[in-house]
């Protein structure tokens, strides 16, 4: 079922939870709503379900105007973070609840309801547990019962509100993989809310990054990760290092670098923020566009080395992560001198109120190898 959201607004008192959301959800896709708490992601999900009345805009399910439908009529499968299972009912009664609540004319016969519920129980791999009560199940099992219960009504769309938020890391990982598989097998249009970027990247086809009631960026996981459209998105999808830089006629100079990187077209000269993830840096020997620093801390974790580097130009510390595939490889020690160069970065202008920065060290410019630069 294709879902079309247009100009949806929602206000809680003085707080604007949704400020004009436009979003198309394709039939059969697995979409993540990603954002920090208070970004409006859960409100949007609840608005789609009809659990939260909206103040303005429209939500359409295919050709149907869903805003005119009650929660009961929308036929959405909703999975809550804390499962919301009916404690006084067995697993089977929980799963069959939606079918049993149908108006008499549309309700299948009791035997058929039982058959379908057992089939769903099988789908969520909980065969044999139909007679248990929710408090006799583990968290992961409960969430799977909740999912089966939501699927029983053959929903137009499956909505999951931080479905793995209450589970421990190991179970969460297993359930993620399993949900991905389930989505592939059943093909339900699925929207889930998460504040965990890793979960969004691992599970979703597309990611909607939300911030303060608005959508910051919509795109495939690759698009959102590789070309974050705003500093916020970049920040949310990783822990970036923000380096001061300057765009000049011949390219972009990192603070203290002797040579520029190639700047994207159309960027006017002036100061710029250079965003780079720890894994975007390379250690180089002699590269005029690189920046110099001293190792402050070095820690190897498996195949990675994490370094904290103090930049010579402005005393800023930078976190970098470099692969360490080879035990013979050189080990970095604190106070070692090092030269870094970001292999990938994004440039943003006036992304935030500029903190006090040290004045740039202008040294002579050299030509530099071009670098892949994304976005602006």
């Amino acid at each position, binding site marked *: 079922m294709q879902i079309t959201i247009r100009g949806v607004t929602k206000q809680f008192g003085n707080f604007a939870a949704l400020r004009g959301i436009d979003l198309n959800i394709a039939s059969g896709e697995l979409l993540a709503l990603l954002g920090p708490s208070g970004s409006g992601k859960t409100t949007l999900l609840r608005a789609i379900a009809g*659990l939260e009345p909206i103040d303005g805009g429209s939500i359409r399910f295919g050709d149907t105007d869903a805003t005119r439908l009650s929660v*009961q009529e929308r036929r959405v499968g909703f999975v809550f973070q804390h499962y919301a299972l009916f404690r006084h009912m067995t697993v089977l009664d929980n799963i069959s609840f939606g079918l049993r609540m149908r108006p008499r004319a549309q309700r299948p016969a009791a035997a058929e309801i039982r058959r379908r519920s057992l089939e769903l129980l099988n789908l969520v791999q909980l065969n044999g547990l139909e007679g248990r009560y929710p408090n006799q199940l583990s968290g992961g099992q409960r969430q799977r019962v909740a999912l089966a219960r939501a699927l029983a009504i053959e929903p137009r769309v499956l909505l999951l509100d931080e479905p793995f938020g209450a589970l421990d890391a190991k179970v969460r990982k297993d359930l993620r993989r399993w949900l991905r598989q389930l989505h592939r097998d059943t093909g339900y249009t699925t929207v889930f809310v998460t504040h965990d970027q890793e979960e969004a990247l691992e599970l979703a086809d597309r990611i909607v990054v939300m911030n303060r009631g608005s959508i910051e960026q919509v795109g495939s996981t690759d698009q959102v990760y590789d070309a974050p459209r705003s500093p916020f998105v970049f920040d949310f999808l990783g822990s970036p290092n923000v380096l001061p830089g300057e765009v000049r006629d011949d390219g972009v100079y990192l603070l203290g670098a002797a040579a520029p990187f190639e700047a994207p077209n159309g960027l006017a000269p002036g100061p710029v923020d250079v965003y780079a993830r720890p894994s975007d840096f390379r250690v180089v020997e002699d590269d005029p566009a690189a920046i110099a620093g001293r190792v402050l801390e070095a820690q190897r974790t498996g195949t990675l080395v994490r370094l904290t580097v103090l930049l010579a130009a402005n005393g800023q510390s930078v976190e970098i992560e470099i692969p360490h595939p080879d035990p013979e490889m050189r080990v970095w020690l604190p106070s070692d001198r090092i030269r870094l160069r970001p292999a990938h970065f994004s440039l943003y202008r006036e992304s935030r109120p500029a903190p006090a920065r040290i004045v740039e060290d202008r040294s002579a410019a050299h030509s530099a190898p071009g670098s892949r630069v994304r976005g602006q």
Partner: protein
Amino acid sequence: MPGFSLTLGFSLTYLSLLVLIPLAGLLLRSAGLGLTGFWHVLSAPRVLAALRLSFGGALAAAAINAVFGSLVAWSFVRYRFPGKQLLQAMVDLPFALPTAVAGIALTAIYAPNGWLGAPLAKLGIQLAYHPAGVVLAMTFIGLPFVVRTLEPVLEEAEKQLEEAAATLGATRWRTVTRIILPAILPALLTGVALAFARGVGEYGSVIFIAGNIPNVSEIAPLLIMIRLEEFDYAGATAVASAMLIISFTLLLAINLLQAWRRRRGT
């Protein structure tokens, strides 16, 4: 289990001193009558009427409180409105008020010449000096038991359960009957049992409004008092023992029902 024998020993001693020994004395005293004498006292029409009124009235009052007490608790938990704290405090008043004061107040208002009694009398409804008045007083003193036991449970009942039921297509009515009611039923039963027990044992607030007409609006506790004043100790203890046995049986049944429900999940 460490401390088991100590705590159990203490509990048993404590219960014995406070409850068991006095009540055993009561039963012993009435046993002096012998079974036939006991039966003779109880089968008197006046005694039977009093027992019927006490237990029937308490049951009716508890049932009324089950419905309206639930509504009060619901509105306290689910809605915010001006004066809520004031109303909250008022619910507790029957706990704190000397029961005689409550009885006199109720009588003053519902007597045929009272504020509410007069217009009701015009409609042909008599509350004071009538079994209905007994139920009224018992309802009054039982209300806080239902409200106060239900409130925390309603507070805890997740709103998400209702939302889940709604997304699954359940109408509001079916959500109430299939989801909310089963969730609060144990607490409701407890509250009703407490209200009922209080109603059976109530004396002060009832006797003023009841009018105490033998065979009509005379409650069992009052009959016990009357027997005592007549120095008919055996008769008094016989009625008291009957009350004790009936109350205990009913409360035990409710407790067993609760335990049975608890075993089935929830």
